[in-house]
């Protein structure tokens, strides 16, 4: 007789969601065969936005590292692409993973400085370091200085081939970022990270190497962000220090994640769709879309901190299950109908307050 009690991961929603996701990805992969040039450009914008949001969510939602300096790695990705393609003559498409590696390498010394700071000071610290990268590039003539660089060899590739290749690369970083986060969360490290997210001190007490885990997350996120930055600038073909290291990249990641729902895999997807949708909808009204999205994000973070996905997930939808559940015949615990999660996944004790004034 079979054991009536089983441990399982899938939920009813996930059994539908995973095949559906596979279908969506396969359909998306055919876009270059029928889509117009404009559709593909927009597609790349959306897919790279999604990848950036997933990466920022991994950093903030799971490792608790609120960075406002991730534009550093977008810019480093863009400039690595240019250096390896133009200066060293490597195929620009191959330069995308190289850009990720360079970003990951540079993230180590960056973390060495930034990890000395906590909470809000960490946030501004990462921002200063991003500024330092920007100003250094502005000062180095070999890297194009303040006037920026043009991806000549990428521009030389035949147009339809280039567009298709960039679209697939964008699809790859977007899907790759989701798969990466999903697999990481299901791994031993994911368990450690979820523990850190729920209660850092508690996790430390249970033997989680908190700092080491955070450092790894920071490096992996830099890798993903750097690769995405390279894809973005492969699409745009022109980079300036001003634009590639712009705070707007952080705004885009942060708002998508916050609106969608911090600390879930589904949240950044929903958030990226909302961000992209509003941006398209209000395209004719200057920067009003950013004002609206900023207000939405500030409102959500305060009054509905689980984000839009959090509101949906109360109805028991869990598309990317990372938890194990105990099932006896058809009844499972935790139940399908409610996604309990930790009571307060984002509340952490404030950093030990420095005695001030």
């Amino acid at each position: 007789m079979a054991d009536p009690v089983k441990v399982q991961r899938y939920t009813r929603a996930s059994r539908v969601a995973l095949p559906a996701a596979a279908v969506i990805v396969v359909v998306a992969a055919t876009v270059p065969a029928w889509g117009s040039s404009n559709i593909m450009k927009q597609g790349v914008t959306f897919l790279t936005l999604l990848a950036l949001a997933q990466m920022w969510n991994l950093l903030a939602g799971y490792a608790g590292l609120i960075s406002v300096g991730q534009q550093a790695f977008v810019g480093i990705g863009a400039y690595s692409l240019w250096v390896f393609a133009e200066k060293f003559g490597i195929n620009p498409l191959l330069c995308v993973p190289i850009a990720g590696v360079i970003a990951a390498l540079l993230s180590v010394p960056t973390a060495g400085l930034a990890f000395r700071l906590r909470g809000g000071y960490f946030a501004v610290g990462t921002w200063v370091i991003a500024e330092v990268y920007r100003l250094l590039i502005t000062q180095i003539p070999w890297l194009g200085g303040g006037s920026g660089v043009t991806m000549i060899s990428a521009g030389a590739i035949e147009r339809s081939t280039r567009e298709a290749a960039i679209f697939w690369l964008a699809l790859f970083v977007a899907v790759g970022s989701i798969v990466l986060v999903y697999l990481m969360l299901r791994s031993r490290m994911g368990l450690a990270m979820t523990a850190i997210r729920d209660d850092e001190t508690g996790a430390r007490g249970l033997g989680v190497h908190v700092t080491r885990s955070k450092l790894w997350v920071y490096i992996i996120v830099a890798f993903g962000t750097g690769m995405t930055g390279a894809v973005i600038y492969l699409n745009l073909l022109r980079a300036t220090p001003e634009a590639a290291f712009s705070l707007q990249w952080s705004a885009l990641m942060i708002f998508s994640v916050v609106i969608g729902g911090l600390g879930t895999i589904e949240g950044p997807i929903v958030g990226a769709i909302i961000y992209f949708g509003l941006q398209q909808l209000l395209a004719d009204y200057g920067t009003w879309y950013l004002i609206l999205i900023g207000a939405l994000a500030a409102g959500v973070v305060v009054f509905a901190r689980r984000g839009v996905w959090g509101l949906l997930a109360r109805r028991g939808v869990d598309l990317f299950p990372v938890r194990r559940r105990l099932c006896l015949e058809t009844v499972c615990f935790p139940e399908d109908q409610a996604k309990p999660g930790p009571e307060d996944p984002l509340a952490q004790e404030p950093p030990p307050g420095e005695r001030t004034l």
Partner: protein
Amino acid sequence: MVWVNDIIQGILLGGLYALFAAGLSLVFGVMKLVNLAHGDFSIMAAYISLVIVGSLGINPFYTLALVMIVMALFGYLIQRGLFNFAMDAGPMQAILATFGVAIIIQNLLLEAFTANSKGLDAGVIENAFIRISDQVVIGWFSLLTIITSVIVLLGLQFFLSRTRTGRAFRATADNQRAAQLMGIDNRHLYGMAMALALAIVAIGGVFIGIRTTFTPSAGPLRLIFAYEAVIIGGLGSLWGTLVGGIILGVAQVLGDHISQGWGILAGHLVFLAILAFRPQGLFAKQVQ
């Protein structure tokens, strides 16, 4: 003598940074909130002054009182209306809420005043100077800035150490819950702290608006300078922010002197060096 002049100019510039840093430090000290919109609030103050100057045709110095009142009121309202709730939601949420406000202010200013740079014209004082020697020249306006900044810091110190509200600020900074048990209404107190911080930053905003031109996107750099001054000086040290501001100012002027365009970068590098070798800052009080 050129170096002496550079150092003097750097010190004077530091006075300006201290004006920004004091508000940031106050807010963090009282409520442990790092306000990412701090720099944008200073730009907002400069634009408010610009509007008043434009409609009344008066010298920007005379707008100072009104700008301070408007900013203080705004600070109190945004603290009670948004940031207090954000802080209830969690420290992470509080940072993100201030980031949202920063982006909103930048873009609202952009929509209202375009991206063209604006300046506040204070008349003759802008170009008046004292000539000490051929190469050492002190501008009256720079001197006025650092004197103002010292007066503000003295006033802040007096307020914190001698007044009833100041005592409540310190009590809350030390232990928010215990202070609450002693009957301090922390929501109101946080509003007061933000109001005070924005009144101070309003002075800084108007002064820097007179000194240089500004655009709606200039806020983040102000925040960064204020923040660097706070970290260099040491968290929680009021006079440390002045020293931090001065070190930053001197580094920037010297950097620019050595090679054009290296000024801001030199300031950042000094900040990173402090972070690497003395992360608690130069004058940090004992951390609990």
